[in-house]
């Protein structure tokens, strides 16, 4: 078990180093940070001082190592646009994004898995067909359009829910939460649905496809031949076997959630990391972009590790280290 985690962590290191190198290359060589930071009027002396301060006069590898070392300590440089340390900026925005993504993920799984099982078993019922049609529409509607439609109906026409921002938040040390106030929760509803809908349809379609695949397998036929009840077959034998691929996709999709939270946050002016990134890309604020890239990579490595551990719990074949 321990060796398993260790080997997975070991595999993750090169990925992180490569992403770090890309982030650093962006940071150091894309555009000219010195010119951007100094603005229009500067003297050669000012310029040289800044180059020295930023460590840009040192060899590539030294710079890279310095950069990684600083990143490990949460120091990602200074935002060109806001002239504030990127680490602090991101830390401020992190709770909003995490709360939004987790709520959306919960919605997607809690609704998507049961619907997938249902449509996988009752493949040709009217209910399944309707659900499948809606899911296709869900996959094809771009996230931002869903957000706009929800705003149009629930905020503009009906006036039931707020259309932007997080509402009132409560601060606790480094964290700010919207879960504890009524306006925070109300503000969360539309963005969470917007963000979760696409993932929900994906999960549902995946569970359905896996379910249909598993139901064709020999061991399900054999379970039927032994006269087991439909309930035991569908929810025991079949569902458990669909879990392995489903866990992977759900894990990978949490990454997708965070990526698409960029869009959702823009539509709802949700003050998270995604909104920060979009604003930064618009003005080519490289330090924010490279920090975001590294943070996402770290997050993904973490998610992959959790996914692997879940596999381990579900599939006995892995527990023995065979196949």
């Amino acid at each position, binding site marked *: 078990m321990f060796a398993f985690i260790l080997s997975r962590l070991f595999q993750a290191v090169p990925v992180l180093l490569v992403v770090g190198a890309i982030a650093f290359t962006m940071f150091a060589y894309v*555009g000219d940070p010195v010119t951007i930071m100094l603005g229009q009027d500067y003297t050669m002396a000012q310029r040289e001082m800044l180059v020295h301060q930023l460590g840009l006069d040192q060899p590539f590898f030294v710079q890279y190592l310095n950069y990684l070392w600083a990143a490990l300590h949460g120091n990602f440089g200074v935002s060109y646009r806001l002239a504030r340390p990127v680490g602090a900026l991101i830390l401020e925005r992190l709770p909003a994004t995490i709360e939004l993504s987790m709520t959306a993920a919960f919605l997607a799984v809690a609704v998507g898995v049961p619907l997938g099982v249902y449509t996988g078993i009752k493949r040709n019922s009217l209910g399944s067909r309707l659900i499948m049609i809606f899911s296709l529409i869900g996959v094809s509607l771009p996230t931002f359009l869903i957000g*706009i*439609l929800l705003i149009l109906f629930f905020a*503009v026409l009906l006036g039931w829910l707020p259309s932007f921002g997080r509402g009132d938040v409560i601060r606790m040390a480094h964290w700010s939460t919207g879960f504890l106030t009524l306006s925070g929760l109300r503000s969360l509803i539309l963005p969470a649905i917007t963000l979760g809908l696409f993932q929900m349809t994906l999960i549902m379609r995946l569970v359905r496809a896996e379910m249909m695949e598993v139901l064709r397998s020999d061991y399900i036929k054999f379970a039927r031949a032994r006269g087991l009840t439909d309930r035991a077959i569908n929810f025991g034998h079949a569902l458990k076997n669909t879990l392995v691929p489903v866990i992977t996709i759900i894990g990978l999709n949490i990454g997708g959630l965070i990526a698409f939270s960029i*869009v959702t946050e*823009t*539509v709802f002016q949700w003050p998270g990391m995604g909104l920060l990134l979009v604003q930064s890309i*618009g003005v080519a604020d490289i330090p924010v972009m490279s920090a975001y890239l590294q943070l996402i990579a770290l997050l993904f490595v973490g998610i992959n590790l959790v996914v692997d551990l879940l596999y381990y719990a579900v599939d006995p074949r892995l527990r023995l280290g065979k196949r």
Partner: protein
Amino acid sequence: MLARFFDSDFFYSFRRNPVAMVSAAVVFMIIVSAVFSPWLAPHNPFDLASLNLLDSFKPPFFQADGELSYPLGTDDQGRDVLSAIMYGTRISLTVGVLAIAFAMVVGIGLGLLAGYAGGAVDALLMRIVDVQLSFPAILIALLVDGIARAALPREFHDRIQLWVLVVAIGIAQWPQFARTVRGSTMVERGREYVMAARVIGIPSVRIMLSHILPNVLGPVLVIATLNLGLAVLSEATLSFLGVGLPPTQPSLGTLIRIGNDFLFSGEWWVTIFPGLTLAVMVLSINLLGDWLRDALNPRLR
């Protein structure tokens, strides 16, 4: 040849599937109206001289103040929404098709190389594919776009923004092609006819292009269709976020973004109609892709 096509199982499954036929018809109509928009559109949204601010914010024809000459209403500049949509679809489709073409060329090339060469080349390429596939495509496209924005001078960047988008979206999507092509190539490489071709000394490149490539085209076609929908969506999303095409070259995403500002003041048509067009287009492409995948996958038949 044509007669054989009409008698094939492929065409039969198309005829039997009303959803596939309807979506093919919709895709066809959208493509025609996009390609011929300069001739079909009632107005030219880029002709600044013809714009009249007095015509601004006219609602669609079915509402009280609507006029038939602006069937889907007008925007803040007095631009005809229908015409803007037709021109916008043209731009969206152009970016989508070019991006897929780019991803396809890169993906097929590297996939063939990995599958045929094997060994270290294969391991390296597949590792890149794995890492990239674990990141969402939209994020990659966003970052490539951001880097281009930072690396290129402002005016130059604005002028070639369409190509930047094509490359950004293409880079985000090549791994799927590469992986599929590699898989099929490894299978084909082991077949006798490829062995035979090698034995008689046909150069590797020719074996790959003339013998292996035709056999991997089926799955590639399916991925291309499904990913076209994704590419169009990516472009729309980037444009909506304000890092895609500028208002001087408005795609559907740009139109939605511009219209979004007027949502709260009640001029919903400026953003909803381009949005619906985008949704219907992507939905039809996806339905067509789904059907294509099922029709080409004999296991499901």
